[in-house]
């Protein structure tokens, strides 16, 4: 295959016009645990499976949904360590924005800056793209917003979206049940039902995580496992 000769170096286009490393990164995302998000008329909900590799793992030490600012939260599909690095960078960018403009960072700005970081890693030497896609959920002056950011650095605003293993089934399910007037309570139910669709084994409060932001603009996680 002509492509395989160009798949080692990130900064080289393949003859078919693709950056094969980014395709591989998307594959890594596609084999990650399912996560999804739904934008309601009065808030946003994001959710993910939390399947731990063994029952011996201390589930309190794993928090897949993180908050970037008090009113913006994020979930991922793909490689956990890459997610941690992005969360750290995004939090710092949000704080720096606030330092400069004395305004909480708008969701679109934070998404743009995070996407810019991810793009940097597709055009630099000696690095590889991030193996995660992010779902950023936030509520600011423009209302509730849900964005997906891919390893290539491209971002999209969604009304509802899913990523990871069960993406096609989950998206079909969401398409059927989504309406523009859906309220936050219903959206949370729909999110859990969508997760249940592709869930292997018994779904329970201990193997999923939910993040919700309502009109009070405060991002809350369930379960919140970090100490006070």
């Amino acid at each position: 295959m002509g492509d395989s000769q160009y798949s080692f170096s990130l900064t080289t286009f393949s003859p078919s016009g693709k950056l094969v490393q980014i395709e591989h990164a998307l594959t890594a995302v596609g084999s990650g645990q399912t996560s999804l998000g739904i934008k309601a008329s009065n808030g946003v909900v994001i959710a993910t499976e939390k399947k731990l590799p063994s029952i011996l793992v201390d589930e309190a030490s794993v928090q897949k949904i993180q908050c970037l600012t008090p009113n913006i939260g994020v979930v991922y599909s793909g490689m956990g360590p890459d997610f941690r690095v992005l969360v750290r960078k995004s939090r710092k960018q949000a704080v720096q924005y606030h330092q400069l403009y004395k305004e909480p960072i708008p969701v679109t700005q934070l998404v743009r800056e995070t996407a810019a970081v991810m793009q940097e890693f597709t055009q630099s030497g000696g690095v590889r793209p991030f193996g995660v896609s992010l779902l950023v959920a936030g509520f600011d002056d423009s209302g509730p917003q849900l964005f997906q950011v891919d390893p290539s650095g491209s971002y999209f605003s969604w009304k509802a979206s899913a990523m990871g293993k069960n993406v096609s089934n989950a998206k079909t399910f969401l398409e059927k049940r989504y309406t523009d007037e859906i309220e936050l309570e219903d959206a949370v139910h729909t999110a859990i039902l969508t997760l249940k669709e592709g869930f292997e084994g018994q779904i329970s409060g201990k193997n999923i995580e939910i993040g919700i932001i309502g009109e009070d603009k405060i991002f809350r996680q369930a379960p919140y496992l970090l100490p006070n």
Partner: protein
Amino acid sequence: MSKLAMDVPAKGGFSFDLCKRNAMLAKDGVQLPPFRKTGTTIVGLIYQDGVVLGADTRATEGPIVADKNCEKIHYLAPNIYCCGAGTAADTEAVTDMVSAQLQLHRYHTGRESRVVTALTYLKRHLFSYQGHVSAALVLGGVDFTGPHLHTIYPHGSTDTLPYATMGSGSLAAMAIFESKYKEGLTRDEGVQLVTEAICAGIFNDLGSGSNVDICVITKGSKEYLRNHLQPNPRTYVTPKEYTFSKKTEVLSTLVTTLKERVEVVEAGDKMEE
């Protein structure tokens, strides 16, 4: 991987490039513009449930009062506040920067910030600038380990005390504390004592004046009492407006209306591409 400083400037630290030029200008008699200093009386004390911080509200530029009601109690974290004396720009910039660093730290650890963390960020920063960042701070807060009160000097040294004062009015305020402080004060006694100490600074020190700001921090809550006491209101304001005599008299008036030189046609041809 995480550094204490935010983004270290390319050259690192203070740039001393202009010092030679300044020395030469000083020799020619040109003086540096006066820094806007806060003159200031700032105090803090520990009472039975937490910490009370107090500050006056006058900012001076040499002999001139630049701001009659400025805010000297700065936010660092929900449970930590810091009073600042010295150059106003320095105290504001340094407390702002440390507040951002503390917020990032809170996200990463998932815990409430500790007063000693703020203390260490501040003293490391001030020491690295060798006293050129002229900020003298009274740092107080309540965290998991209890109430804490510290003073930080511009060169980076710190003290941990049950009651503290800083600024040009510190001696007046300390006189009040030394005579009336005792352990186990109640909230009202603490606020009363802090108010008295700041008032001593306001009335006896030229660099301090105007109103008293108070901040009470306890476990899990804080009260920011802006202008808790206003002992210097404007007592005399002229009831009628100031009238200024007319210096220029109108002799005659001639009005010329603007004449249209271009005819505006609605719905004309679209511009050719």
